[in-house]
């Protein structure tokens, strides 16, 4: 460094990671283990990484009227986040958005995220399937969306690394056999698969082997109920890792607790025993070279003028309830944005960086979800165990993708909680309490009749969740509007969102499949889509009307590609325009397939860590590196 006017001392690190969520926690783990000095700046508070803080969140969730994903987590005006309750449907269709997201699209973006140490995966469901090899080249093979600059095979070893890190429970043989996923010979997951629910078994008994056409002229598809890989603790696989086995991680603050899923059926919004993976578990194993600073909202990435970035500017606050904060900077050789798909795009836009391609913020994707729901002819055992333990995987790929979005079918173990707010909606209805207090109320049932009716009705509930691949479209995007700022003066994200006809055709096909599934099951179908307060995602398509929900799977906002001309990050998630700026997370994904995205995101992130390590090593050569601590 040349001598110049003295600058205020700014702490210097090898790496600054923005965000202590799933992606950021993995980066800090990997680079910290290699001896790099890592500073993690986290916008939210860290009340959840202590046992009392966890119990407080649990109480908050129990006391919440609506057990939505963000119910346990305290609002934070210094680092606001969206909530699914921010959206209201209008009586004749259309929607209103009142919360953190400003929305101006034809359809609402219906997913939330969480800003607190640990991030959105505090309230994720924890399903951890791999993407299908076909999902990586949808444009080449099926003529829609965008292709990855990588193939499944490039990611395969990193999938294994991610499964180790998250402690995934699954059955590789079944995944290979039923879905066609390639695994190396002899591979087993760290833990045995999560047992499937009674409901899964009933559905399997009635559907397995049945051949079905989604339309009269379509080819036949053979149905099969397949268990889903989960990032939640089941029985460790003694044969894992060449017979070394796997040691499950227990709860943060109470490590011998939560080593097994005990069936709390509360994974979203919070697993009481922490049997489900959260990034707090990775954080608990960070090396001493990792420093976490919470209450630190990054507002801008700082540049040197030569394309390289210098570090970040952040707003440090003490009390979430007070607007007081101080502006600080942190410098590092490498900056890694891991703030979630929407927030990463927002930061790049606010910093005016990485946008030579014009793609920053564009290609916003989610997994739009169609729910269908009904009653079995006998008790189904709803509200027990993880939210979904099995699914139908046969619509995930194949030639039909040319015409319509593919989909994964999750068998929903939690009754009608998502489609109809059960069981509280059922109690209200049977008591004659209508949603609108100005309307006259029905007479209502009481006593033994009420009890019997509820048991008979709620006890037979089940649902299907059809999750669609959404194609990357540049019109679906995140922008920022300086006229709308949060408490710290940072512009809030504006979302423009719609579904392509490809997706809408997928939704219509899935509904036709669902109709057949209900018939095959001999179940009473109660599915109905009507506009109104609780249906912001209601829309018409062709002759039909549908309603979709968000899955929480934000992706695509800093899209990865093979060319700097049309993508934001390279195959290492490194910004094309800035050699020492990475943007990691689902925001990099050019297509999302139909699998829940976080395992793929984790694999991609671990792969990027190798490149980050090489970048740092090159920068520091010939300085000797320390051996990673505690490693052979």
């Amino acid at each position, binding site marked *: 460094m040349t001598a110049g006017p003295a600058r205020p001392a700014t702490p210097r690190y090898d790496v600054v990671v923005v965000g202590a969520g799933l992606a950021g926690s993995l980066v800090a783990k990997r680079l910290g283990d290699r001896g790099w000095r890592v500073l993690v700046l986290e916008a939210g508070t860290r009340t959840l990484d202590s046992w009392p803080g966890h119990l407080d969140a649990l109480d908050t969730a129990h*006391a919440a009227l609506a057990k939505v994903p963000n119910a346990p987590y305290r609002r934070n005006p210094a680092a606001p986040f969206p909530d699914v309750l921010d959206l209201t449907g209008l009586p004749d269709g259309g929607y209103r958005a009142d919360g953190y997201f400003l929305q101006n699209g034809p359809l609402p973006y219906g997913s939330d995220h969480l800003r607190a140490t640990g991030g959105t995966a505090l309230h994720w469901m924890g399903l951890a399937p791999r993407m299908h090899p076909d999902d990586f080249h949808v444009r080449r093979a099926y003529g829609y969306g965008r292709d990855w600059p990588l193939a499944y095979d490039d990611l395969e070893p990193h999938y294994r690394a991610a499964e180790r890190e998250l402690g995934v429970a699954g059955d590789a043989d079944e995944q290979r056999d039923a879905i066609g996923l390639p695994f190396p010979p002899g591979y087993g997951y760290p833990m045995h698969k999560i047992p499937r629910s*009674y409901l899964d078994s009933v559905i399997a008994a009635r559907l397995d082997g049945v051949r079905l056409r989604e339309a009269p002229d379509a080819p036949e598809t053979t149905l099969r109920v397949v268990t889903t890989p989960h990032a939640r603790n089941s029985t460790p696989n003694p044969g894992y890792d060449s017979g070394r086995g796997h040691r499950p991680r227990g709860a943060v603050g109470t490590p011998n607790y939560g080593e097994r899923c005990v069936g*709390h059926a509360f994974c979203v919004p919070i697993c009481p025993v922490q049997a489900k993976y959260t990034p707090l578990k990775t954080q608990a194993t960070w090396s001493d070279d990792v420093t976490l600073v919470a209450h630190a909202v990054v507002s801008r990435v700082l540049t040197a003028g030569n394309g390289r970035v210098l570090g970040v500017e952040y707003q440090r606050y003490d009390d979430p309830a007070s607007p007081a904060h101080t502006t600080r900077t942190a410098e590092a050789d490498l900056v890694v944005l891991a703030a979630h798909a929407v927030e990463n795009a927002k930061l790049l836009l606010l910093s005016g960086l990485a946008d030579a391609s014009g793609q920053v913020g564009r290609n916003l994707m989610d997994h739009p979800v169609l729910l269908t729901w009904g009653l079995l002819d*006998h*008790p189904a*055992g709803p509200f027990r*165990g993880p939210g979904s333990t099995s699914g139908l995987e046969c619509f995930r790929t194949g030639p039909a993708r040319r015409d319509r979005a593919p989909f994964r079918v999750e068998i929903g173990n939690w009754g009608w909680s998502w489609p109809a707010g059960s069981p509280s909606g059922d109690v209200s209805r049977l008591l004659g309490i209508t949603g609108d207090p100005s309307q006259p109320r029905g007479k209502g*049932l009481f006593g033994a009749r009420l009890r019997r009716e509820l*048991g008979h009705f709620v006890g037979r509930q089940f649902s299907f969740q059809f999750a669609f691949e959404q194609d990357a479209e540049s019109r679906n995007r995140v922008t920022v509007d300086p006229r709308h700022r949060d408490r710290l003066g940072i512009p809030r994200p504006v979302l423009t969102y719609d579904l392509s006809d490809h997706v809408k055709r997928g939704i219509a096909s899935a509904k036709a499949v669902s109709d057949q599934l209900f018939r095959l099951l001999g179940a009473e179908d109660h599915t109905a889509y009507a506009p109104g307060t609780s249906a912001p995602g209601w829309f018409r398509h062709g002759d039909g009307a549908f309603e979709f929900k968000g899955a929480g799977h934000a992706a695509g906002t800093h899209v990865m590609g093979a060319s700097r001309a049309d993508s934001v990050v390279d195959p290492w998630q490194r910004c094309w325009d800035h050699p020492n700026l990475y943007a990691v997370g689902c925001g990099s994904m050019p297509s999302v397939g139909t699998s829940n995205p976080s395992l793929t995101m984790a694999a991609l992130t671990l792969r990027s860590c190798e490149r980050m390590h090489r970048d740092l090593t090159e920068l520091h050569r010939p300085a000797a590196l320390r051996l990673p601590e505690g490693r052979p």
Partner: protein
Amino acid sequence: MDPHDPVPPPECPGFVDVSVRLTGFDEFTLRGTGLVRLYHDTTVEQVGRAAVGRFLDDLAAAGGDPGGLTDEVSRDIARAITHLWYLGVWPQLSRSVHAALGREKPNTAFTVSPEAYTEGLVWQTFHGHPPGAKAPGFGTWADPPPGAPAPARRTGEDAR
């Protein structure tokens, strides 16, 4: 035990009697929630002693059958107490009843306490447990719930 020892009176006996009629659950189950006192106090606080008194009179006049209540205020109180027991949530009253009672508090629904959610009776109606509380244990979700047939087993699938 000395039969001359005074037996302490049970807490809120009238409220429990009424709650048995409203919910269809017996006294033993209701008391087992540990919430009798809290629910009694919540009801009195929400609608006032006078309205509770009129409700009790109306219920007696209906022969103790909540289905026979004709007065809309009393019927809404019956709905509210039952809702409270089943879900731990005091519900919104109907707007006209809220006005008729001259309530000064906002007419909003709220969960009375975290335990109230946990002790909601609705879960028992179908042999369930409150999600996030009272976990039944690893793998229990694979077993048939009471009243359900064992699923037909396929070729060794899931034979745990």
